[in-house]
Structure formats: structure tokens, C-alpha cells
């Protein structure tokens, strides 16, 4: 064993020495043999000849000896690698194109897979993440709320708490605004209040102190707070002594009991349904401490950890049973049902579809890269048939030739893979910095080396497959025939050009699909920009004025008074042209909504009742926003609690509930019969509320001075809109001064220009567009590279033919046309197939489109033309080369 190793090592490192030794040894043998013949009386020359004959193939035997030494594999690899380097260097065109293809293909797909991995596949950073469900209420199909996942209400939660369920732990949470005062600058932060089971359900443990338990969730004990890592670091400077200290929250002293780790961010806005209001970024958690018999709207998210071994069917049975009990108590809830969603799926519901779109795009790019590499290697191996045949004749066995191909491909992989990793890191970095903030876990995305390896392996396997087949074919051919034939025109088997053309058609088709998809997104973006927003964002700034939840502002009348005073003061700022406020300004978020009743319509089930969004506005709000008043009059300062109750509605509401009639003067009210009806005094144009791509929904605008329901909708915060005469410089300070005049403790939050908010609402769309355009461009480049490669190769193959044609009188123009025609025919085939494929696949992305059909003929046509143009441009260079063929020179070469 030891001697074996020693021998092999010696063979490996003393290779030169052993080679000369072997040569000497074999030469001695031949000479000794010749001497034997000479002694037998044979002539000198004849003796040598016989000795050589008897000895057999010198090189072949040396090869066998090397193999017997047991070092051949490693040694051959090194030899092959050296040879491969030489081959790749001698063909810089091929090497650069192949390496570029690999780098781009591998880079792009690795980046995208890494993102998908981080966002979709990685487990949640909560201990129980995998077993936690969220439960949502679902309205009967066809009703106003049927498209939404509805949060829970306090009575529902309290009923679940009294019911035996399949949950081992469960908890609820709802958004709460915290006005942090005390030592530092007053700060307004969003967070949640949670029930006692919230932390136990998720299973996240704090980095400092403890989290909220059932004991904290009782009235009288609820003044405790758990801080998020970022709030702790920014406001409290990461002070480890914070636990046990008291902080001022909404005017009350709260004791800090713990700090959560960085990874614990639940709930964040990612993936929550539109009806569920959650903090953009949770700053802190406090106990909810609901009083017994609490009332309230559907504003709570429910998380529940299943008992071990509970099946989905059991869970659904449980929910059905609970819903039955609920309907016994509230008959109007008939028709509603409950839908459990695993937390893992919940966090990505909204973001999953764009990611799947990327995945599709990435797969297409990878396919194009593969077919490109396949085409390149196929071309080259066919060209190298002679080399392989010759090497076969000289005694190289098939194994060696295959090994050679493997080594060459591996080398190519290294040349392309390195830059590919760079491309991937750069892309991931770019996406993390410029990608939509709504994407959960995006910041955790890293280049995934396993994925990179996978992409590399796939492209290489393709290259190997297409490179190997012709190489193997070469070793199998009749050596003599192949060598005799030997000219350049020997293109090998008849199938090679067919495969090559097939690959090219495939590339063009795939690229077309991607570019069509990118084109559709581009048109979507364009329609969004041109969509009638119902407001004019120029020179409009908005801010939010949340009132602290303290005794001072407990009464809605007092709240309205404060909002009115602030409005008067900001209106008085010299640069302000118009000002107003609403519960939620356009682009400021979702509004509350309600079931409505319209007198004269038969009473029907709540589940089938009409509905509308419902919010407060001030006089002058529509003027400040630039929303056109289409009929009737605007809300006025004279609309107060004691006067006629009025409302302004939007165009969609008027057309939907009073089609063909004059809505102004009609009566409408919220679902509760004890609340009096309102008279419609005006109709305004539809406005986009959350994004430019949403379809309009019915809206009711109610004077903030006519809040007779008091408990709903909340008046805790209002959003102001100021239309300025000039630019926004210095306005923030003036607004602060105006608010100080009313109450210096009031925080001014979310100061922003409306234009910026409109832009922000389009981040996800812009991102999808950029990404798909990037992939589309990549596909175009790869396809044109492929086209160029194939056409140049064919021109090279046909040089002699072209020369003959020219000798027989064909003009240069005719030759040019011939080559372009060949490329054009391939491109046309690809475009045809691509159009059909795009027609079938773009309908999958209907959800991303706005203002354009999935089978938009203009986009399809334009992209087809673009591809044809690119294809012809790619053919142009080789076509010109063909045109310049010198017939005499080419024929002489024959």
C-alpha cells in the first residue's frame, strides 16, 4: 500500500524523469531485438524494421504504461487543461462569446433565484413560523367585501377565546399609533397592541427582558411595552439598562419590559390584505387589555399556532363550527366563512406573483443561454471533427477525447462563472437598494452559491451534451474516409445544421416572449402615468396630524375643533393657495368602508347589500387636491351637526347606485338603521386612492363636522393637503409653527410631496418593469449573439459555394441578399413560434397589466418587428463578409 503511494507520487512529480526513462527502456528493447535479427544474419535496415514491427505502436504502448502507473487520470487532466487553455486562447471569438453568455445567463438566474430564495423559500425568523396560521373572514361571493380578506373584530376574538379550538396558542394584534414624548424630541411611531397569546404563538424570544404574557394583557397591568430593535437603537441609543425603565407613551408612563431582536418585525406591511391596517414598520408592542364585552370594527389580525398533528381538514371543521356559533349570535353574518392562511404564505401573498414572473423570465434567459452555449459548442465540435478523427487515428481512445471535452467545458465554466458571480452579486445589490420596500426579507437576500453552481452545471451540461455528440461521432467515423475527405466543407452529419438552426429559432422565440412581456409592462406603466388620477399632484404637499390618545382629545367634537383650527392656520400661510384635509388623502392609504342603505330599495341580506368607502373631508379639500366637482356643490363650513346631514359622492358611486339618474338630492346612509340618512349634495370625479392602477370604487365623503356615529370611522388622525403657490421650500417649518399655535405637543407626521407619494405607489410596478426589461434586453443580446454566430459559421462553411456563385456571375448584392434571406427565414420562424408562445403565456400576467390587454396587437407587432430588425442586424456583418469573398482566392483554397 505504502509502496504503491510512493510509486504514484514519484510517477507524478518525477514525471519528466520517468518519461525519459520509459523512452530509454523501450528504445533499448527495440535495439536489442534488432541485434537479435542482425545476429541471425539479417541486414541492418531490415533488422530494425522487423524489430519495430514486432514491437507495435510506440505511442500506444507508452500510453498504456502511463495508465499502469496509476497517475494517468490526474496527469491527463493537467495535460488536457493545458491543451484546453491553448484551444480557448486560439479561438478568442468563441471564448469571449461563450464566457459572456455564461456570465450573463448564470449571473442573472443566480441573482433571481437568490431573491426568490430569500423572499419565498427561506423559513420565517419566528420559532413557530411554520405552524402558525392567520385566519381571515371571507364575505359571500358577489358581495361588496367578497374580494377582501377581512380582519377579526373584538367580539369575534373574545368568542374564540371562550371556545375550545384546535389552536394551542393564538393571539390578535391591531395597529396603534404611539406618541413618544419625554426626554427626547416628540416622535410619532406606529406599532401594535397585542393580546396575551401573541408572542407565545409566534415563539420569538426577546434579546433583552421578556415579551408580553397573558398577565400583562389585563386591565390595570397593561402599561408595559416591548420595543423593536430599531426603536431601541435609534431613540434609546441601544441602552441595555432600558428594561424596567419608564417611558412616556401617548401621555402615560409605560414600563419597558423587553427588546425584540432585529429579525422580529411582525407585523410588517408585507403581505397583509388591504383591509388590514398594519404599521409600515412596527416600533413597539403593548398589551391590548380588551375590556369584557368590547365592541369594535374588523381591525384585528388573528394568528394561531395549531396543536401538533392537527390536519387542515380538522382546522376547517373547527372554523366552520365557530362560524355557526357566531351566526347564532349575529344572524346578519350568515354567508360569511373563514379562511386559514399559513403565515409562510401570508407574508408573500402579494409579492409572490411578481416573483413568479421573474422566475419565469429567469428560466427563459437560462434556456436562451443554454441554447446559445449549445449552438456554440455544436458549431465548434463539428469544425473540430478532423482534429478528433486525427487524434483517434494516432491512438487516442474515446475516453480521452470525452475527457478532453469535459475539461474544456469546465475551463469555460470557470472563465464564465467568475464574472457570472460578479453579475449576480451586482444584481442582488442593486435589487436590495432599489427594489420595492414592500418585499419581505429582501434585505436578507445574498447570492446563493448552490444556485450559482446549479445554473453553472445546467449550462455546462448543455454545452457538454452538444459538444460531445459530434466529438463522439467523429471517433466513430471511418478514420480513413474522414481524413481523406478532410476539407472544410465536411460539416459532419446532416443533423448538425438542423439542430443548430433549431436552437436559433428557439432562441429567437424565447427572446420574443420575454420582450413582449416587457413591452406589455411598459405599456402598463405608461397607462398608469396617463390614467386619470382624479387629482393634480403638482405643488401639493401632504402631512398627517395624529391626535394623542389622551383624555384631552377623547371627544370627537373636540377633535374636529382642533383639526379645524389647524386648517385655518395652515390656510393662512402665505404660500398656500388652498388647503383641506381628509381621513386619508389619495395615495395616503386605504379608507374605511361600510355597507350602505339606500331608501326605496328592498331590505336584503347584509352579505348582498351595497357598500362604499367612507371618510371625512373638510371644506376646500377637493379644491386643494384639484379634484373636479362634476355636479352639485362642495362641502361647506356651514354643514354642521345641527344642519341637514350631507355627503359628496364620487362618479362611480353615482353611476353604480343611481344609473341614468341625477344622484344629487338622493338619500343614502350607513348600514345601521338608527343612523339618519344623508342627502347627496355633490358628485366629484373618481380619484385613485391607493395606487394609480386600482379600479375606482364607490366613495362617500362626509363633512368632518357632521360625525354623529362618533365611534367610527376613527378621527384619531387626519391627513392634510396643501396646494402651494411656489415650491415646497420652508413649508414644513411654517406648518410646524401653525400647529404649534394650536398645541405644541401635536406631532406632524409623514410630511411629503404628493408627487413623491404617487411615485412611491408605483415602486413595485417600476421594479417589475425594470427587471423584465433587463431580462428582455439580455435575451435580445443573447439571441443576436447566437444569430451572429450561426450565420458567420454558415458563411464560412459556404465560402467555396459563394465563390462558385460569384464566378458564375452572381452579383455582390445577390450574395448579401442570400445570406440575409437565410438569417431572415430563421428569424421569421422564431418570431412565428414566439408570437404563438407569447400569446399563450402573457395571459398569465394579466394581473400585472393595467390599461393594456395581455394579447395587445400593437405590442406584439412592434416586438416582432424589433426582433426581425435585430436578427437582420446580427446577420449583416457576416453577410458583408460573404459579399467580399474573393472568388479566385476561395477557389484556390480548395
Amino acid at each position, binding site marked *: 500500500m505504502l509502496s504503491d503511494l510512493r510509486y504514484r507520487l514519484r510517477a507524478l512529480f518525477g514525471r519528466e524523469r520517468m518519461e525519459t526513462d520509459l523512452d530509454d527502456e523501450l528504445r*533499448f528493447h527495440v535495439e*536489442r531485438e534488432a541485434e*537479435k535479427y542482425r545476429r541471425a544474419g539479417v541486414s541492418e535496415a531490415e533488422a530494425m524494421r522487423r524489430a519495430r514491427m514486432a514491437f507495435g505502436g510506440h505511442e500506444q504502448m507508452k500510453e*498504456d504504461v502511463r495508465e499502469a502507473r496509476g497517475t494517468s487520470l490526474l496527469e491527463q487532466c493537467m495535460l488536457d487543461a493545458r491543451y484546453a487553455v491553448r484551444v480557448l486562447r486560439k479561438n478568442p471569438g468563441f471564448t469571449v462569446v461563450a464566457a459572456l453568455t455564461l456570465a450573463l445567463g448564470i449571473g442573472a438566474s443566480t441573482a433571481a433565484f437568490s431573491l426568490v430564495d430569500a423572499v419565498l423559500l427561506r423559513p420565517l425568523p419566528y420559532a413557530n413560523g411554520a405552524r402558525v396560521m392567520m385566519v381571515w373572514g371571507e364575505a359571500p361571493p358577489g358581495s361588496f367585501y367578497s374580494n377582501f380578506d377581512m380582519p377579526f373584530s373584538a367580539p369575534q376574538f373574545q368568542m374564540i377565546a371562550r371556545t375550545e379550538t384546535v389552536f394551542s396558542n393564538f393571539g390578535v394584534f391591531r395597529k396603534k399609533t404611539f406618541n413618544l414624548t419625554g426626554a427626547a424630541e416628540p416622535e410619532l411611531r406606529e406599532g401594535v397592541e397585542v393580546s396575551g397569546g401573541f408572542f407565545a404563538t409566534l415563539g420569538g424570544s426577546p434579546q433583552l427582558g421578556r415579551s408580553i404574557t397573558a398577565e400583562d394583557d389585563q386591565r390595570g397591568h397593561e402599561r408595559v411595552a416591548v420595543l423593536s430593535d430599531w426603536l431601541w437603537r435609534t431613540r434609546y441609543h441601544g441602552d441595555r439598562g432600558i428594561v424596567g425603565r419608564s417611558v412616556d407613551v401617548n401621555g402615560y408612563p409605560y414600563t419597558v419590559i423587553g427588546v425584540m431582536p432585529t429579525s422580529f418585525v411582525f407585523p410588517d406591511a408585507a403581505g397583509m390584505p388591504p383591509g388590514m391596517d398594519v404599521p409600515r414598520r412596527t416600533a413597539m408592542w403593548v398589551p391590548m387589555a380588551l375590556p369584557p364585552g368590547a365592541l369594535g370594527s374588523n381591525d384585528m389580525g388573528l394568528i394561531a399556532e395549531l396543536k401538533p398533528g392537527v390536519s387542515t381538514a380538522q382546522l376547517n371543521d373547527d372554523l366552520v363550527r365557530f362560524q355557526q356559533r357566531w351566526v347564532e349570535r349575529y344572524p346578519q353574518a350568515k354567508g360569511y366563512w373563514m379562511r386559514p392562511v399559513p403565515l409562510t404564505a401570508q407574508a408573500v401573498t402579494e409579492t409572490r406573483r411578481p416573483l413568479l414572473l421573474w422566475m419565469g423570465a429567469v428560466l427563459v434567459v437560462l434556456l436562451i443561454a443554454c441554447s446559445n452555449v449549445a449552438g456554440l459548442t455544436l458549431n465548434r465540435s463539428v469544425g473540430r471533427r478532423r482534429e478528433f478523427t486525427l487524434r483517434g487515428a494516432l491512438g487516442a481512445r474515446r475516453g480521452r477525447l470525452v475527457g478532453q471535452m469535459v475539461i474544456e467545458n469546465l475551463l469555460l465554466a470557470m472563465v464564465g462563472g467568475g464574472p457570472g458571480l460578479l453579475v449576480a452579486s451586482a444584481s442582488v445589490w442593486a435589487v436590495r437598494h432599489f427594489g420595492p420596500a414592500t418585499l419581505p426579507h429582501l434585505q436578507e437576500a445574498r447570492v446563493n452559491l448552490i444556485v450559482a453552481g446549479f445554473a453553472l452545471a445546467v449550462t455546462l451540461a448543455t454545452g457538454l451534451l452538444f459538444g460531445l455528440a459530434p466529438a463522439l461521432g467523429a471517433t466513430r467515423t471511418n478514420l480513413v474516409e474522414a481524413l481523406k475527405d478532410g476539407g472544410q466543407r465536411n460539416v459532419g452529419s446532416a443533423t448538425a445544421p438542423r439542430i443548430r438552426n433549431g436552437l436559433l429559432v428557439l432562441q429567437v422565440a424565447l427572446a420574443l416572449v420575454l420582450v413582449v412581456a416587457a413591452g406589455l409592462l411598459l405599456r402598463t406603466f405608461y397607462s398608469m402615468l396617463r390614467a386619470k388620477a382624479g387629482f393634480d399632484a403638482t405643488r401639493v404637499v401632504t402631512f398627517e396630524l395624529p391626535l394623542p390618545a389622551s383624555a384631552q382629545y377623547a371627544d370627537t367634537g373636540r377633535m374636529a375643533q382642533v383639526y379645524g383650527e389647524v386648517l385655518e392656520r395652515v390656510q393662512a400661510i402665505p404660500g398656500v393657495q388652498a388647503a383641506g384635509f381628509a381621513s386619508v388623502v389619495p395615495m395616503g392609504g386605504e379608507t374605511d368602508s361600510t355597507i350602505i342603505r339606500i331608501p326605496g330599495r328592498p331590505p336584503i341580506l347584509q352579505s348582498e347589500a351595497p357598500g362604499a368607502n367612507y371618510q371625512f373631508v373638510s371644506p376646500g379639500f377637493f379644491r386643494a387636491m384639484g379634484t373636479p366637482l362634476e355636479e352639485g356643490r362642495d362641502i361647506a363650513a356651514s354643514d354642521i351637526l345641527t344642519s341637514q346631514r350631507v355627503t359628496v359622492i364620487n362618479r362611480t358611486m353615482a353611476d353604480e347606485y343611481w344609473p341614468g339618474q341625477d344622484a344629487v338630492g338622493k338619500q343614502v346612509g350607513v348600514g345601521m338603521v338608527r343612523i339618519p340618512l344623508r342627502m347627496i349634495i355633490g358628485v366629484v370625479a373618481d380619484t385613485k386612492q391607493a395606487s394609480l392602477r386600482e379600479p375606482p370604487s364607490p366613495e362617500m365623503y362626509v363633512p368632518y363636522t357632521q360625525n354623529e356615529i362618533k365611534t367610527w370611522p376613527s378621527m384619531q388622525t387626519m391627513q392634510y393637503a396643501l396646494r402651494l403657490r411656489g415650491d415646497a421650500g420652508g413649508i414644513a417649518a411654517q406648518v410646524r409653527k401653525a400647529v404649534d399655535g394650536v398645541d405644541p405637543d401635536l406631532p406632524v407626521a409623514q410630511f411629503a410631496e404628493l408627487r413623491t407619494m404617487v411615485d412611491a405607489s408605483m415602486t413595485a410596478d417600476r421594479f417589475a418593469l425594470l427587471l423584465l426589461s433587463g431580462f428582455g434586453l439580455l435575451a435580445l443580446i443573447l439571441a443576436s449573439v447566437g444569430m451572429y454566430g450561426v450565420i458567420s459559421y454558415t458563411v464560412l462553411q459556404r465560402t467555396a459555394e459563394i465563390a462558385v456563385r460569384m464566378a458564375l456571375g452572381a452579383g455582390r448584392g445577390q450574395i448579401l441578399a442570400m445570406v440575409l434571406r437565410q438569417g431572415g427565414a430563421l428569424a421569421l420562424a422564431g418570431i412565428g413560434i414566439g408570437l404563438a408562445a407569447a400569446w399563450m403565456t402573457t395571459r398569465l400576467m394579466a394581473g400585472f397589466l393595467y390599461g393594456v390587454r395581455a394579447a395587445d396587437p400593437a405590442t406584439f407587432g412592434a416586438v416582432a418587428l424589433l426582433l426581425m430588425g435585430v436578427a437582420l442586424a446580427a446577420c449583416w456583418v457576416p453577410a458583408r463578409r460573404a459579399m467580399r469573398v474573393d472568388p479566385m482566392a476561395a477557389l484556390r483554397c480548395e
Partner: protein
Amino acid sequence: MVSIDLPQGTLDLLILRTLAVGPQHGWAISERVQQVSSDVLRIQQGSLYPALHRLERRGWIKARWGTSDNNRRAKYYELTRAGKKQLEREEETWRKLAAAVAQVLESA
């Protein structure tokens, strides 16, 4: 002159047996086998040298450079201790095999 191709696996045995007499170079080994077997057994040169290197790798023979009878530099192989043991084992195996084959042939 009738010659027989060597049965599989016997080449090693023949080389080891030949070297048991004393160190020899490659050519002499093949000549000797041919002579001793009255020209019946012939070692193909194409198999001889790979076999020698394989045996050397296994540590059964070792090589050193020496001077041949015609005053040339030649590579001589000799048995190692392990080689001697291996030869005994292989001879034993071969005898058993031959006897068994003969028995089968005669019984028919």
C-alpha cells in the same frame, strides 16, 4: 511454430517466475519466456511494459538501471520480498487451477 496467446492473468505469473531466477531487463524476460516455453508462449510487447510498471507500482518488483550483456544501459527488474510471496501465491493458484481443469477434461 505454434504460439498461444496468454490466458488472462498469467502474464504477471510468468514475469514473476522469470525474475525469480535473477534480475532481468524487459527484452530478456520476453525472450526467456519464449525460449523456455519452446516458442509456444509469446508475450506481446504491448502488454509487457505496462505489466512491468503495474507490478512495480504494486511493490512486487523493483527496477534499477544497469549495464546489459551488450554493454548498453538497460533497466533491470528484480523480485522484492513481497514479490516472492506473491509468486508463491500465484503459483499455488495456478497449479490448483490447472489441475482442476485437467481433471474436468479427463473425466469427460
